[in-house]
């Protein structure tokens, strides 16, 4: 099974500083790390390979120095690394990133499963995984917390939801994005670190992967960041007790008493 794990370099801090003029993230002068959510994707990719055999390739789009981070992934079991690096890619939003990565994946060619972290710690959009699947025309499942079964052409996994999980089957190739509940990433081993030191990362340009420069980077990015904020979830539930008839009656009364109006639920941001 050929597994591609997509990872992103992010600043090693939870306090992301924004450039007020361009509304983009300031990356200068901050230590770079692999997006923490992606480390679960790496671990899951390596575990699948260890269980059923195959090859793992890590793929990223970023500045040339990301090569060093990709080498680190080889210390925890990744076999090969590909970096898409080109000025044309600069300033990409999640759409342009999905496009570039999809072209990179097509270039790598033979793949069965693509694993991404659920979202990046800096941008928090969670769009690249699904976007990638659309660009490649293959199915995807987000927020995977467990892979129940995986074999040639088939995957069954658990998708985490706010109040439980769904079991989803997909044909392969497919994309999954994983949550931190899926595993505990291993530490590197000394042998792995030695191997990583000697490893070579393939660096590809936009031209190498046949990407249309109009769809890459800033040019290919229609996103306008107007405002950023953290959405609040404060759903409160209440269990209604009693016989089914009683419960239905209580529920109906409750709903009626709440007197929903449409005016305060249409606020659009």
């Amino acid at each position, binding site marked *: 099974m050929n597994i591609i794990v997509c990872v992103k370099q992010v600043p090693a801090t939870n306090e992301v500083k924004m450039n007020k003029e361009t509304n983009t993230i300031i990356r200068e002068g901050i230590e770079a790390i692999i997006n923490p959510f992606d480390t679960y994707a790496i671990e899951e990719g390596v575990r699948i390979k260890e269980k059923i055999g195959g090859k793992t390739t890590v793929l990223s789009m970023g500045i040339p120095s990301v090569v060093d981070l990709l080498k680190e992934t080889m210390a925890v079991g990744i076999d090969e690394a590909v970096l898409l690096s080109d000025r044309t890619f600069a300033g990409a939003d999640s759409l342009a990133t999905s496009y570039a990565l999809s072209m990179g994946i097509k270039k790598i060619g033979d793949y069965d499963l693509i694993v991404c972290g659920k979202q990046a710690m800096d941008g928090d959009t969670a769009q690249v995984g699904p976007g990638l699947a659309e660009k490649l025309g293959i199915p995807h499942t987000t927020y995977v917390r467990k892979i129940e079964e995986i074999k040639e052409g088939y995957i069954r996994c658990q998708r985490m939801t706010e109040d439980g999980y769904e079991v989803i089957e997909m044909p392969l190739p497919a994309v999954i994005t994983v949550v931190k509940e899926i595993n505990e990433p*291993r*530490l*590197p*081993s*000394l*042998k792995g*670190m*030695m191997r990583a*030191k000697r490893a070579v990362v393939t660096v590809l340009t936009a031209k190498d992967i046949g990407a249309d420069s109009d769809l890459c980077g800033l040019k290919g990015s229609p996103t306008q960041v107007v405002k950023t904020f953290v959405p609040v979830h404060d759903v409160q539930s209440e269990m209604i007790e009693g016989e089914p008839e009683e419960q239905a009656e209580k529920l109906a009364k409750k709903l009626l008493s709440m007197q929903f109006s449409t005016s305060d639920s249409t606020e659009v941001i």
Partner: protein
Amino acid sequence: MNYYLTEEQQMIKELAAKIADEKIKPVALKYDEEGTFPHDIVKILADSDLFGVYIGEEYGGFGGGIFEMALVVEELSRACGGISLAFAASGLGAFPIILYGTEEHKQKYLPDIASGAKLAAFGLTEANAGSDAAGIQTTAVLDGDEYVLNGTKQWITNGGEAEIYTVIACTNRAKGARGFSAFIVEKGTPGFSFGKKENKMGIRASVTSELVFEDCRIPKENLLSREGMGFIVAMKTLDRTRPGVAAQALGIAQGAFDEALKYSGERVQFNKPISSFQAIQHMLADMAIQIEAARCLVYQTCRLVDSGEKSISKESAMSKVFASDTAMKVTIDAVQVMGGYGYMKEYPVEKMMRDAKITQIYEGTNQIQRNVIALELIKGLKTKK
């Protein structure tokens, strides 16, 4: 200070530091309180390949020496001097095989020690033979193709957890220390069991047990070197591994210092951080000076040992004495810098102070080390004449 470590040594140190910070620090207090053996951390260390750093490549290791071992011990000890001992004591058990084992011994035992699949331990001390190791009573009698062991070893680190034991026993009592021999004994051998497990002041995550031999029969091939070489095997092994104890002490001292320094910047009294008081500043400076001096001595001694130099007893003793006395002093001062908070279990320094003490006692007390150093000095005086 830049110690110009090789790229490999740097990598080893970094990996050990990562394990110490991410995996050991969070559980150090728990293991200290429970006094149980850290199987999960030993598994992490095994998976990381670190057990192999001081074992030859031909046996699945990395071909390093005491220096590589010491770097790991130092980093792990920053987080917990007890947990690091499971690693260090396996080295102590392995070195007699590395130094005196036949090719068969090495092929048979070293790969499992290098991979961390099996721990090793070293059994010399007995109830009536501590500093005076020449007083051991455990016997080994050759009977056909087997040696028959009888006696009890006391306070053996990794006792019960290790699979491979190097044990010193008398094969000829009439000859005193010249009548000792060293053996490899595997756990599970009939007649070999584990007695009392100690309840200790510090390094409580480390297990310290009795090894009990009752007509324990081991193959004759398990003799290390020759009959009569046991005392030499023990002394030469300890000369080499003593910088490992020094590294443990160094790591404990560094860990305590890091805590104290950080705390001194956070704790405000009289409207100022306590780090602004000269009394605290000088204590911190003294701690840092002693730690750095200890590190210089320990690293350089490791390099000397690994160079293959024959005469290393004095230097090895010096590194152990200096680093362990430093650890004791620094941990006491760390508690002092942190005041009442330092005394509480919410902060790790009280544990470090308890852990530090053992480094002045085992692998030869610091008094015995000073005897060794002085003897070497006097010997040098005589040869000069």
